[in-house]
């Protein structure tokens, strides 16, 4: 059978601009490329700025995981300047991280990924009474009456009949790869709306500590919010109780809506176990109990698993020039030695667009084809994200995560190997949401206990003044963003940023192939994926979305040093 090349651009329901081209032989994908098609050059913009300001610039790399780049940035400066943050600041940052994960994962599951599993139009055929009994059989969530589901169904019906389908227009409704019965589809649509209304509640925790979301505020040396339990203009019991109430609501929503939904949906898709892709998984680890410099205290464990071998976990050193390197063999960038890799502290890049002139119809993978680089760990492609974190934690014997994985796989009657799939990636993200909401409950208690002990400090200002800094310093800040391992590398010289590089989760996952032709995680995961109707590649969307792409993240990081830019620099 002849091969065919299909293109999806824009890949929607993601952050940023992503293009996928796949070669289909009959009804199976035999080759695929993923291309980040946006570039903003933020690292060059932060050069020569005040390192204390940089978090605000790099935070704008991504407004979805809006907490994580700011956090990685302030941690990189604190690492460079050896600043120790107060205990409250560490707990508050952890609360903000876990809050980000819960909110971002829920939005992803329902609003970005949901339509890959849930057929909205099929929900019109549902019997609301049956949806109600299904809902009540899987959860104690109170919004589950027949009338409630009837009302949701009417809403969708009106929308479809109006002829103005809005966000539901032109999708692959009725596609054979949708496997849910109409009643479960109706349940999914109802929870799509409920989750949309709820996500804005949990994220209010960011507004309490950071003043707003998206893009809350941070401070090198701690957190900007002060605690004073005797004053109602700062963090006191009113604000804390508000945070507590949002955590409690989130726990109910995750336990009673998200988790029952994923298990119900997974039950109908348990035979679709393609999309595993790479077999290497990496987590930098995060949520330090004490200090970010003590990886053994991380509530999200650090490590690397190779070839799905759970008997061995490798360690990572972010400062070792030989471990994490970036390659540009198939990116729109140029190195002096084209096939070598560079550690981020020495990241040197130069824009070299050799793609087609827009408007174009196809990319050429024998040349550069993405604004994303190809990061590698000891030369190997890695998958990062919730599944990678769970694989590493499972291999390390983390009891809580092991229990979450084992019990849900048992309910689904699936083996551990089922995790290595598109479905497994989505399941891991949902279970991680539950893991984080449980951690939030504990973190809140920890914060209260510490304040109760008399410690209200939130900021260490010893190194605030640049006069206290060494002439030169370098540091790395990292965290586990919702989409995976995130690192920011900074070099400071005479109080200003001398060099700045971010290697972000979607750069790992969306990376183009390298000189050795190793595919990136997206690309590898598409190979062998079956397509029921090649012109309606629902299965590709499902697999790509299972990674939760964030392309503004992936492609922000290259410093174009073309002629034109050099001119601008000279003027400066």
């Amino acid at each position, binding site marked *: 059978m002849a091969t065919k090349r299909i293109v999806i651009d824009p890949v929607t*329901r993601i952050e940023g601009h992503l293009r996928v081209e796949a070669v289909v032989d009959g009804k199976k994908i035999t080759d695929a490329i993923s291309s980040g098609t946006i*570039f*903003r050059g933020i690292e060059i913009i932060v050069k020569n700025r005040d390192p204390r300001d940089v978090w605000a610039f790099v935070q704008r790399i991504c407004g*979805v995981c809006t907490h994580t780049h700011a956090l990685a940035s302030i941690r990189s400066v604190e690492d460079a300047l050896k600043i120790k943050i107060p205990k409250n600041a560490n707990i508050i940052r952890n609360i903000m991280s876990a809050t980000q994960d819960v909110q971002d994962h829920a939005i992803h599951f329902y609003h970005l990924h949901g339509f890959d599993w849930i057929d909205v139009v099929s929900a019109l055929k549902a019997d609301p009474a049956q949806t109600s009994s299904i809902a009540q059989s899987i959860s104690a969530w109170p919004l589950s009456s027949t009338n409630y589901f009837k009302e949701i169904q009417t809403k969708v019906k009106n929308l479809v009949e109006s002829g103005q389908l809005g966000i539901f227009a032109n999708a692959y409704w009725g596609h054979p790869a949708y496997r849910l019965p109409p009643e479960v589809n109706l349940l999914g649509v109802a929870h799509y709306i409920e989750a949309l209304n709820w996500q804005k509640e949990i994220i209010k925790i960011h*507004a309490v500590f950071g003043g707003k979301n998206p893009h809350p505020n941070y401070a090198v040396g701690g957190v900007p919010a002060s605690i004073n339990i005797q004053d109602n203009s700062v963090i006191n019991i009113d604000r804390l109780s508000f945070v507590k109430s949002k955590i409690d609501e989130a726990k109910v929503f995750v336990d009673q809506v998200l988790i029952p939904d994923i298990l119900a949906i997974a039950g109908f898709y348990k035979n679709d176990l393609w999309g595993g892709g790479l077999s290497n998984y990496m987590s930098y680890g995060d949520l330090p109990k004490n200090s970010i410099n003590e990886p053994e205290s991380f509530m999200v464990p650090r490590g690397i698993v190779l070839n799905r071998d759970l008997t061995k976990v490798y360690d990572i050193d972010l400062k070792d020039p030989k471990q994490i390197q970036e390659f540009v063999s198939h990116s729109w960038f140029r190195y002096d030695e084209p096939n070598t890799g560079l550690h981020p502290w020495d990241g040197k890049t130069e824009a070299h667009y050799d793609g087609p002139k827009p408007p174009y119809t196809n990319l050429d993978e024998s040349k550069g084809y993405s604004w994303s680089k190809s990061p590698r760990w000891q030369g190997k492609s890695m998958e990062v994200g919730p599944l990678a974190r769970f694989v590493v934690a499972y291999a390390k014997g983390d009891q809580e995560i092991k229990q979450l994985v084992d019990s849900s796989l048992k309910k689904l009657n699936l083996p551990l190997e089922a995790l290595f799939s598109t479905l497994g990636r989505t399941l891991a993200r949902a279970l991680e949401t539950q893991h984080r909401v449980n951690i939030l409950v504990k973190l809140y208690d920890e914060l209260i206990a510490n304040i109760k002990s008399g410690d209200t400090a939130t900021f260490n200002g010893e190194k605030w003044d640049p006069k206290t800094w060494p002439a030169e310093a370098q540091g790395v800040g990292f965290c586990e963003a919702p989409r995976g391992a995130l690192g920011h590398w900074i070099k400071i010289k005479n109080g200003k940023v001398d060099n700045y590089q971010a290697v972000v989760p979607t750069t790992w996952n969306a990376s183009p192939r390298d000189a050795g032709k190793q595919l990136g995680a997206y690309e590898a995961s598409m190979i062998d994926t079956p397509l029921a109707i090649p012109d309606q590649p629902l299965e590709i969307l499902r697999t790509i979305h299972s990674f939760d792409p964030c392309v503004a993240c992936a492609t922000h990081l290259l410093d174009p040093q073309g002629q034109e830019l050099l001119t601008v620099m000279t003027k400066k």
Partner: protein
Amino acid sequence: MQESYYQWAVKKGITRREFLQFCTAMAAVLGLEASAVPKIVNALETKSRLPVIYLNLQECTCCSESFLRSGHPLASNLILNLISLDYMEVLQAAAGEQAEAAKQKTMKDFKNNYLLVVEGSASLGEEGVYCTVGGRTTVSILEEAAEGAIAVIAYGTCATDGCVQGANPNPTKAVPIHQVVKNKPVIKVPGCPPIAETITGTIVHYLTFGTLPELTPDGRPKAFYQHKIHENCNRRAFFDMGLFVEAFDDQGAKEGWCLFKMGCRGPMTNNACALTGWNEGTSYPIKSGHPCLGCSENKFFDKGSFYAPLSGDLPGVTKEGDNSGLTKGVIGVAAGAAVGAVGGAVASAWVLTNRKSKKQYVDEEKFYKDKGIPEEK
């Protein structure tokens, strides 16, 4: 079939005559000729929901995320009941060619009757290769979609100013959308991101009152942007008393004093933070202890360090002991008295001595000149 605007308006007690007047007024606001009025009437009578095309260009998606945080109206209500969101990459079910087809259909079927919302800047560098969607450049996508729009909402500071990617040295030549869209009204709803209710509010203002909101001289809806944050700041009394935070988490910080000396740009920032608040009024940056970054103002990333106070740029504000300000003073709050009253320890207080010009706390012209920033056109 859902009710049309007209049916909805009748239900709200609006007469046919008023409805027609509104259609005529709208045509005038949009700068359309009289012949366009029947088209508007027809659209509002027969079409149930306003078609909206939402473009994501060169951006970080914070504006889309903020849009989803809207509490009144709820984002879900807006998307499913009030408008027809026919193209928005972040939310729409369709992808690739099918997504593009949905957009093309709306542009054709609702020519001159859809609203265009744009998040992100356009990129002019290297003939547009720094940001493409469907193999096309941001400029070509934007020009095409603006062509048949009623009006264009530039949503967020990327779209109104270029924001972070437009900061020096602007490697991709990011430009605000009004530099590309010349033939349509462009309403600017700035902020990084804007508060949710400023964008949903701008759309609902149009749906409710039938007119585009009145704009400030720089093109922003007055309803959300006519006040400076400083005018309504919850810490304002401390500014007037001369009680300032000197470092994060110092005693003043623990008592909620003014963040002016921490670099706060509230005095030069027009935004709704202190009034509407963020995340349904939960807080806003100053309330949570961080100085305002001024994110709704042009070139806010290129105005020096975020922690450098606007000292010297605030007319009438002077350090204690410098009598030049006090002599001109209209309201001179004696520093000693203020500090004494609160029992604070910050004796090196600053004093506000001139409140004649309520709107103009900052000599912006001088500010830009001092920092070597060219004035915005």
